[in-house]
């Protein structure tokens, strides 16, 4: 499919605004979209409930990709890592992992996917209708600051230096 106004950097967040801390990533995107326009010139922002294989097509023609999601597994409010394509069984569910999306890109488009990073925000409560937990609010605040720094230097090597591990 032809693409419209593809920008070199993609921020792809996923989560449900009505399910407590699952809203973290979409809320982060709202914060990002309020940043000065000079920081956003090369950025495309996408949001979805969950990742599916067609998101592999969203990675086309990008220089850098940032995935963001809430995570109950986080030990820190914000964790940041670079991803590699990986086979796992998440494609048998209705919610894929970003590394598996990269693998689909590699397998179907027969090309190396762009550098992709995952930012996870610590969440603890995911009930329908609930607001953000105190822990999640702290995560959101830190993540907004963190992403602002990333967007000031949208360079692969700089992002790699920010990785948690």
């Amino acid at each position, binding site marked *: 499919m032809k693409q419209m106004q593809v920008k070199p950097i993609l921020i792809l967040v*996923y989560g449900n605004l009505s*399910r407590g801390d699952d809203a973290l990533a979409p809320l982060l995107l709202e914060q990002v979209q309020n940043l000065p326009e000079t920081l956003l010139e090369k950025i495309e922002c996408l*949001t979805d409930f969950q990742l599916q294989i*067609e998101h592999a097509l969203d990675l086309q023609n990008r220089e850098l990709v940032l995935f963001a999601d809430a995570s109950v597994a986080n030990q820190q409010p914000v964790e940041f890592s670079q991803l590699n394509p990986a086979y796992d069984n*998440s494609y048998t569910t209705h919610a894929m992992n970003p590394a598996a999306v990269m693998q689909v890109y590699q397998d179907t488009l027969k090309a190396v996917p762009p550098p992709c990073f995952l930012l996870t925000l610590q969440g603890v409560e995911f009930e329908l209708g609930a607001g953000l937990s105190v822990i999640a609010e702290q995560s959101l605040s830190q993540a907004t600051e963190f992403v602002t720094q990333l967007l000031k230097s949208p360079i692969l090597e700089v992002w790699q230096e920010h990785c948690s591990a």
Partner: protein
Amino acid sequence: MYEHLETAQSPENLKRVVIEPVSRVEGHGKVTLLLDDNNHVKQARLHIVEFRGFERFIQGRPYWELPVLVQRLCGICPVSHHLAAAKAIDQLVGIDPENLPPTADKMRRLQHFGQVLQSHALHFFHLASPDLLFGFSSDIAKRNIIAVLGEFTEIGLQGVKLRKFGQEVIRMVSGKRIHGSSSIGGGVNKSLTKEERDYLLADVDQMIAWAEDSVALIAKVHCSNKPYHDEFATIKSSYMGLVGKDGSLELYHGGLRLKNAEGNTLFDHIDYCKYNDYIHEEVRSWSYMKFPYFLSLGQQDGWYRVGPLARINVCDYISTPKAEVARQQLMAITDEKMVHSTLAYHWARLIEILHCAEAIKDLLHDPDIMGTDLVATGVKRYEGVGVIEAPRGTLFHHYQVDDNGIVTKANLIVSTTSNNHAMNESVRQVAATYLDGLEITEPLLNHLEVAIRAYDPCLSCATHALGKMPMEVELVNAQGQVINQVFKSTSQGDIEKTL
């Protein structure tokens, strides 16, 4: 029918097999089987184990929030909820469907066609095609979209791109692939720009061609083993769906039609605002999902099926030419007036993809789609009912508000609820036909899931935080001991045998 398998006489003496959650469907349900010592099936049930309580969540909110709020019901069909709510809200602001500005009506239809197209593509190519292309009993490692992409690359990629196109239609209409807010009470908040229209037009002919190919594919698959596909999970039922004034297939707005298993029209052009006079919902103790039925026909005989097959069965024709040819081909597979094959749901689904692609092209060539008359206003009312044909079937949204516009009562009948009885019947049919008396194996259990998947049930809760939602399957013997257990972590998808 197989209702004798709904409740076993002496369940305490039977073995229990649990599939939880059912995979490759949206949301979370489980199947339980009760077997005697010779593996004869004595009870088979599909349970919906999550309790949503979304209606209570809506109450107390201002009505104008609803089109946005209800989208969070589901990650796959948010547009359907958005539009059903919008139609109800239209009435709250005093606007009936025929008084909506043409641009608003057509923008909503365009969005809805995009929604149905992308949802059907997701279901068929991502979730169902592995069973149909590799076989119900094939290696479990192959029963997934990745394997389809590997072995049937063109088909898999076409599915991915069809879904992407549907999402792009939604994005052009609403600004986002999900959770856009294009519809408001009495209209929409934008029309298409020329650039947006041309962007979609550039690909629409390719989508129509791929949709035709997919119809040819399912026809070939079905007819490759016709007796089996005709009979698998098949039940004879009534069917309900919206139709246009002239009896045409209608996805966005029309009257309700009910046909019985013999093809006779029992109700026609029912005003959906009066649905409560016709449809009641029964509660059963073992499932959170209700069992709707037509009141005048009674609980025993009043249940019905909805969704793509129902719509094809109840309509007189389809307004777009290629889809109409495909409809006639499907209806010709039987000498009966109705196609009852449960697996024909897939065929009907692909015909609807073709119809949506054709209809999208027609709308993109309609100048109203770029019009400027977006919203109509009227006199406030206190009650509104919105009904559309969502991808999985007829979807009802019903609201009452107070003087301040606060929602005091909400009732939603989602498509999957209408298919609850039918899905249970199909599960019982498969259990009785294919599992009875046999050693239970994973491929056999997959047959039950294939039956459920044909209906494309949406049991979604849409929370997907990393590390959540594992899958567990257990086999319990007659003494209640767990004798086999398998666990799958969703975060990494690793499968481990835990017993």
